[in-house]
């Protein structure tokens, strides 16, 4: 069961293949979440303007209108709905592009029940954070802010991960406060080994929660790991306490920083 389920939470799944829609709705209904499905992206956009959804799951490669267009349209209309992209063409470029264009997460087909569940879980959590944020804004009391934006010098991949370029061509990366906020009750994390290579947009760590869900952590840049934060294994709460400094995850030597930076958002622009 998903915790903190509220009755009015509903998700919309868009995919041109009926079997995917069936599979997703089967799982989601089993988790007692309401779901609408749609094979046509244009109809889905209509539905979005009529009803309120907590999150949208959207395929990328579809006839007539592709997932990126849906994503753009949702942002143009200022719907403020978190979008999770799904694709069978699961390249890191697609992942990175999705996140750069404003999706909150990316799952590649084929996915397991657990992977889907953890992504939806995070998506719902994200929409709750957003809701709280809006409420806080309207009430004008800043105390309700539950996550910390990343420091202006940093760059971020979607709202998931950040990097900070240090001197001598070394970059530090970690998870954003918002990402950690969407993962409730973190139990431990599985890290890659030193000297392993990581690719931008590919999973570089697994965040395991108490309910045994595994959340993939997508790397903001590609490169070679030269150091990892061993403190995290002893003190996992470091992540949430100080996500941007003491809670760093890897130190890496970037492979092609300039290329990767094209898909990252400068945290300085968040403050505009």
């Amino acid at each position, binding site marked *: 069961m998903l915790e903190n389920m509220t009755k009015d939470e509903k998700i919309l799944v868009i995919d041109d*293949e009926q*079997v*995917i829609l*069936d*599979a*997703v709705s*089967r*799982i989601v209904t*089993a988790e007692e979440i309401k779901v609408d499905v749609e094979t046509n992206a244009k109809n889905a956009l209509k539905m979005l303007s009529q009803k309120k959804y907590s999150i949208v799951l959207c395929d990328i*490669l579809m006839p007539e209108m592709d997932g990126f267009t849906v994503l*753009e349209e949702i*942002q*143009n209309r*200022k719907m403020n709905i978190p979008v999770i992209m799904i*694709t*069978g*063409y*699961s*390249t890191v*470029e697609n992942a990175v592009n999705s996140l750069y264009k*404003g999706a909150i997460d990316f799952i*590649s*087909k*084929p*996915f*397991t*029940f*657990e992977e*889907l569940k953890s992504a939806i879980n995070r998506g719902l959590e994200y929409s709750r954070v957003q809701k709280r944020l809006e409420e806080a804004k309207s009430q004008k009391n800043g105390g309700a802010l539950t996550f910390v934006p990343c420091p202006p010098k940093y*760059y971020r991949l979607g709202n998931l991960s950040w990097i900070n370029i240090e001197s001598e*061509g070394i970059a530090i990366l970690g998870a954003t406060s918002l990402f950690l906020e969407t993962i409730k009750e973190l139990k431990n994390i599985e890290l890659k080994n030193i000297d392993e290579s990581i690719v931008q947009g590919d999973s570089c760590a697994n965040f395991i929660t108490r309910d045994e869900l595994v959340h993939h952590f997508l790397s903001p840049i*590609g490169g070679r790991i030269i150091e990892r934060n061993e403190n995290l294994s002893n003190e996992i709460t470091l992540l949430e306490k100080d996500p941007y400094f003491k809670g760093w995850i890897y130190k890496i030597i970037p*492979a*092609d*920083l*300039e*290329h990767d*930076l*094209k898909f*990252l*958002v*400068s945290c300085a*622009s968040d403050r*505009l």
Partner: protein
Amino acid sequence: MKIRQELTKISLKLIIAVGIATIAIISIYSFVSIQAQRNELLSQTEIYANKLSETIRNSTNLSMLENRSDQTHRIINTIAQEPGLREIRIFNKEGRIMFSSQKEFIGNMVDKKAEACYACHTANEPLEKLPMEERMRIYQTPQDSSRILGIINPIYNEQSCWEAECHVHPKEQKVLGVLDVKISLKDVDAQISSSASRSIAFAVIAIALLSLIIGIFVRRWVEKPVNELVTATEQVGTGNLNYMIKNLGSDELGLLAKSFNNMTQKLAEARIQLFQSDKMASLGRLAAGVAHEINNPLTAVLTYSSFLLKRIKDNPQLEEDLNVIVRETKRSREIVKSLLDFARQSVPKKNKSDINEIINSAISVVDNQLTLKQVKLEKNLDENLPPIKIDSNQMQQVFINLLVNASDAVNNREGKISITSKIVNLSAYGTLQIKSAVCSKRHSLVDEEEKIDSMPTIKLKVTSNGDVGYLNIDPIYGKNRDNYKIKIKNTANVQVSCPKCNISLLEKDVYCPKCKSLIYSFEVPPKGMFEKCINPKCDWQRWESVDEAGYRDFIEVKVSDNGCGISKENISKIFEPFYTTKGQKGTGLGLAVIWGIIDNHDGTINVASELNTGTTFTILLPADNNNA
């Protein structure tokens, strides 16, 4: 037709040429030698005739003085027994034949126009002295087949003659008569003709033999290797690149065969390479399609099975079975993913490399093709280029593609391609491209639809005096080829905004330092803010982070050809995917891929072309990207 073919053969031409030369040389030689022999034989006969004539005169002298004509007759007749002597006769001054070895002519008058008298009596007054060579005559009488050599010997008056007892000749007479000896040239002529025919026979045999020898060797040394080369070329022409020419020795044709073999081998290698990259490209497309299609059914399998697995906790057997399904579906997922990773090569793997080395290895790949087309390649590489961080495989692909395009564009033989590399120091102003642009709400402002110089422009929404229109900004910093689709009437009262979210891009309380108009700005991640004046007539713009960097070093690589060129209408399309002039032969992806690669290296590629004059591609790569 067949004869014509035979006639055009190089071996036959050679044989004919050599044959004619031999015939000419041997003919001249034979002719000269026959002439010489003939003259030699004649002069010998002449000497003999002369001596004989003198002998007759001397031996008859006494009988003449004693006026004993019967003795004279006897002497003449005796001498006339000699074989080859036709006639000996003596006639007096009036031309009457006084003595003759043939009795029937005695007493006859000789016609002064006849050949014996001709030498002295051509002039009206008869000559009294006659040089030796003019006393000789060779003639042929109609009734006789062989030629006759006649020699006259004038008998002059001497003291003993007019003092002789007979008193026949007075003292005043100078010439008393003429001794005429006729010798048949039958033997000499036979000798001459036999030697001539021997010479001719020798010449004919020599010519025939020489032609035969030349023919054999030409066939062996020229025709056979040339035929072998022609067969090989035809084989290669039809696509059989495995055809090898057998060892043809070490002469020029043998060397040609060797380099031909070498060339086909390299060509085969290059074809394999090209085939490989083509295969990779199609495999990539296939993988993308397969991945997408297969991943959907796999998703259903994986989600349902993993979902079932979650719910069955009390049935170990079923759990085990389901585990197999989940595990194997996950394995399929990995296979598809690795297929996709393999097909995807767009992210450059950069290493410090020497660009000249890459150019040279690209040249070695296309060199055979250029040699085949007889296209001249001029290479002008600056030896002192600094190493830069690039993906050498991708860069090589760029140069190979450009060289192949150039060689396709030029004519055979007159074709010339040049490739140069050098370091240039340029201001970012006028060269650097704005590749990304976002409004403060992170909407991309890049307009892929409208391009300037094949580069996407930056599209902004402009409101002026209530009219709404768009402005497409030149992506090259400093070039100002902006496309205003709206008339701006008052530069102090306009709105510039993001076409997607309408957020204003105008800067507050800041005005253009040049013309005091409003200034708009947007972010160019990750290179900071870009600012520009709204006034179409003003060229003020600022890109602070780039300006601070100042002049930068670029490595410039130019590939030019003198080929057919690209028309003005098409030049804007050449970097578009699927645009091709090569019909079925091209995919239309070459230049699009090149553009992508150069773009991924933060470089620029430009093309300048004129129809029927040539095309030049200029690539600029930042030379100071070592720290990136």
